């Protein structure tokens, strides 16, 4: 409940404060968002499985974001930045779908 409230608050803050994304962060922010989304879905699934642990959630969230950003950074340096970010997004998208499927089975038995 509080988590959902936090999500809504964060969205509202982002919409109303209108912060400017720093240039150095611009390539990494979208990937970081997708990675964080993956972590949140994983956490929700863990919650439904009864194995949610806040420490694991924090570590996975931060690690997800950092690793995703790192991969994109490395890709940029190697000159394959756009392809590598596409790959990261595909992988994370697959994980989000599988986690969402597990959550769906938990909630709807289907």
């Amino acid at each position, binding site marked *: *409940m509080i988590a959902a409230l936090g999500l809504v608050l*964060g969205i509202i803050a982002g919409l109303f404060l209108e912060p400017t994304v720093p240039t150095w962060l611009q390539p990494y922010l979208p990937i*970081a968002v997708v990675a964080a989304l993956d972590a*949140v879905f994983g956490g929700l*699934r863990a919650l439904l499985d*009864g*194995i949610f642990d806040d420490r694991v959630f924090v570590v*996975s969230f931060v690690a997800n974001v950092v690793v995703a950003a790192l991969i994109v950074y490395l890709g940029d340096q190697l000159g394959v930045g756009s392809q590598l970010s596409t790959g990261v997004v595909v992988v994370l998208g697959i994980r989000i779908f599988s986690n969402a499927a597990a959550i769906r089975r938990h909630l709807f038995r289907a």
Partner: protein
Amino acid sequence: MTAGDDVERPGRAGEEATAGPEPVRGRARLRSAMHPRATRAQGVAALLCGVLGFAAAVQVRSTQDEGLAGLRQTDLVRILDDVSERGARLQAEARDLQETRDRVAGNDRVAALDEARDRARVLGILAGTVPARGPGIELTVTDAAGQVGSEVLLDTLQELRDAGAEAIEISSVGGPAVRVVASTSFVDAGQPGSGAGVEVDGTLLAPLYRFLVIGDPSTLQTALEIPGGVLEVLDQRGAQGVVTQEQSVDITSLRVTPSPRYARPAEADQGSADDG
């Protein structure tokens, strides 16, 4: 590495093992999690979800706002290439279209129209649908003996045409006038020698006949005066032809444009194909 990683295996295994009671437990857990409690786990989750929401909102906003500003250098170069290539293509197309427009709407069109008008005027003179004026001769034929028939007038006409006459009118002095065209016919009105006159294209012309001819005056006169020519023939028949050269001959009699009932202009390429 991630929560998904951490829970994926046990979650799937547990689900397959206990497919029946699992959903109920899952829902109960969700319900219990929905109760606001100030536990550390709830707080941390709220914080991270807030960060996610914030970042997502910012990213969505910047994507909507900036467009090109958020792109990588390589992407920008590719886009620039695309745009410049497209620009060159469109420029070439614009050049082509401009040329076409100039050709269609520019001076050429006026010139074509003028040329068409000139052609229509020239053809009108040949077809007898427009009045004509120019240097030429006036030929007056008296017929005291009534010996000038259709064949004499026809010979005269052929002689004039051979000499380059461009527009011809035949009239009986003080009477009707007929514009001579390609289909003009001569028919004797009465018995030969009766002097009843000649029907030219259905119009009865009585002597004295008068030819108004536009063409080179001296050539026309010479053609009529050659030995064995028109004037000599007239002389033999007791008639008399008088030729006067004129600086300006006005031919005003007109002919209605014939509209063919059956013949239609054939396509030019079709005709050539038939020829070949």
